[in-house]
C-alpha cells in the first residue's frame, strides 16, 4: 500500500482487538466510501468516549457522570448487589428487566496462571461497599467458566463472614437447546440445581 493516509488508518485499526490487517483494509476502504459527515461522526464518537466516559466511583460501570444512573436511581433496590466481570455483562442483565438492584463491576476475573490477583480487580472496593452499606444479598454473576468460578469462590469466602447472603447465578441448559447435545458437566449442574414444580 503506497498511500500514506490509508496505510496509517489500516495500522491504527489493527490495534483494535480481533481486527487483522485484511479486516482493517476492508474497514479503511469502507470508511473511504462513506460520506464525510458519517466518517466524522464515527471519529467524533471515538473522541467523545475518550473524553467523557469514565468508571462509576461506586460500581465501576461506564458512565459520563461521577456516579452512574443506576447507583443514583431512587427506584433501585439498594440492598442487593449483583457482581459482574465486565460492563458488557451488566448491560445484558439490565436487558432482562428482571433485576432491580445495584451492580458491582470487577473489571476482570481472577486467573492464577495469568497473574490476575484480587488486587488487580475491584474486589477491595466491593468488600468496602458491603461493609459500609445496607447490603443484604450479593449475587455473584461472574461467567460460568473456570476464571469466573474461581472468582466466585474467592468472593464467597471473603464476603460470607460479613453476614450477607451470597448467591450464585444458576448453571444449566440454554433455552431452545437440546439435552442430547449437552455436555456432562453442564447437564450434571442442571440436575443438581433443579427446581421443584
Amino acid at each position, binding site marked *: 500500500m503506497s498511500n500514506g493516509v490509508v496505510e496509517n488508518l489500516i495500522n491504527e485499526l489493527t490495534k483494535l*482487538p*480481533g481486527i487483522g490487517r485484511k479486516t482493517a483494509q476492508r474497514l479503511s476502504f469502507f470508511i473511504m466510501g462513506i460520506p464525510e459527515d458519517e466518517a466524522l461522526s464515527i471519529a467524533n464518537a471515538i473522541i467523545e468516549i475518550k473524553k467523557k466516559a469514565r468508571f462509576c466511583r461506586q460500581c465501576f460501570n461506564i458512565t459520563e457522570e461521577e456516579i452512574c444512573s443506576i447507583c443514583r436511581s431512587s427506584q433501585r433496590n439498594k440492598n442487593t448487589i449483583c457482581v459482574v466481570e465486565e460492563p458488557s455483562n451488566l448491560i445484558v442483565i439490565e436487558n432482562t428487566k428482571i433485576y432491580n438492584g445495584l451492580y458491582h463491576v470487577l473489571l476482570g476475573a*481472577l486467573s*492464577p*496462571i*495469568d*497473574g*490476575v*490477583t*484480587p*488486587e488487580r480487580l475491584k474486589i*477491595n472496593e466491593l*468488600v468496602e461497599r458491603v461493609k459500609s452499606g445496607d447490603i443484604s444479598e450479593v449475587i455473584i454473576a461472574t461467567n460460568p*467458566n*473456570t476464571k469466573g*468460578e*474461581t472468582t466466585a*469462590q*474467592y468472593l464467597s*469466602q*471473603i464476603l*460470607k*463472614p460479613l453476614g450477607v447472603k451470597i448467591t450464585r447465578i444458576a448453571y444449566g441448559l*440454554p433455552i*431452545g*437447546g437440546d439435552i442430547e*447435545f*449437552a*455436555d*456432562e*458437566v*453442564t447437564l450434571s449442574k442442571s440436575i443438581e440445581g433443579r427446581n421443584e414444580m
Partner: protein
Amino acid sequence: MLTRTEGIVLKTQKYGEADLIVTYLTSDRGIIKAFAQSPRKTRSRFGSSLEPLTHAKISLWGKEQATLPKITQSDIINSFHQIREDFHDFISISKLVEMLMVLIPESIPNKKLFTFLLNILQTIKESEQSSKDALHLITRIRLLATIGYAPRLKGCGRCGGKGLNFYPASGTILCNKCAVPFVAGQSYFKISSNTIHFYTHSIEWPIHISNRLKPRQEVLAELSTLLDRHLTYLLSKKLHSSEFHSGISGNQEYKSRTT
C-alpha cells in the same frame, strides 16, 4: 487434514468476539495450541469441554505442521471439574500447569508427561482434603524430576558429602568445603534433614501411595519456598501462579476470613 488425539486443556485465551485459543498437552504431539470457533457462546457445541484440566478426545483440522489448527470436535473423557471447583486445588494445580507451560517447549511429543499429568489429576481428584497440601507439593517435585529440572538435595552436588545449604544458583546442596571455592558469595537456603527425607520419598514413592507421607507444616513450607526459589532462578522470573498464591496467603482480609 483431520487428525484425532487426546489432550488435557492447560489454558484458554480469549480471542476475538467469542473464540478461544486453547493450549493442550496432547498424548502424541506434546504441548500444542489450537483455535476454537465461538465456544464462548451459550449454545456452543463445545460446552464445557474446553475448560482447563479437561481430558478430552479432540479432532483438529489443519496442515500437518500448522501452528494453530482448528478444533472441530471435543468429547470429554474426564472433566476433572471437581479440581476446578475447589479454590485451593485449582490454585495449586495452576502452579503445576504453569510450570509445564514454561519449562516444556511446544510440539515435542512426550507420552510420559501426558500420562504423568493424567495420573496426577486422577490422584488429586480422589484424595482426601487433609492430604492435599502435601500432594500438591509432591506433584510439583515429581514434575521437575520427570523433566530433569529437579533440585539435588541428596548430599553435596560436587563431592556427595553431607550438607544442608541449598544454593539456587547451583540447583543443589553444597557442603561447606565445596561451597567456598565454587560459589563464594552466592545466596543459599538452609533446609532441615526432615525436608530432605520428605523430598527423597516424594520422588521415589509411587504417586498413588504418596498420601501416606505425612510431613509437618514446617517441612511443607520450607520445601515450597525452596522450589519457588529454585524455579525463580531457573526462569529468571517468578511464576504468576506462585505470586498469586503468595498474594492470597498474605492478604490479611482473606486470611482472617478463612481461618
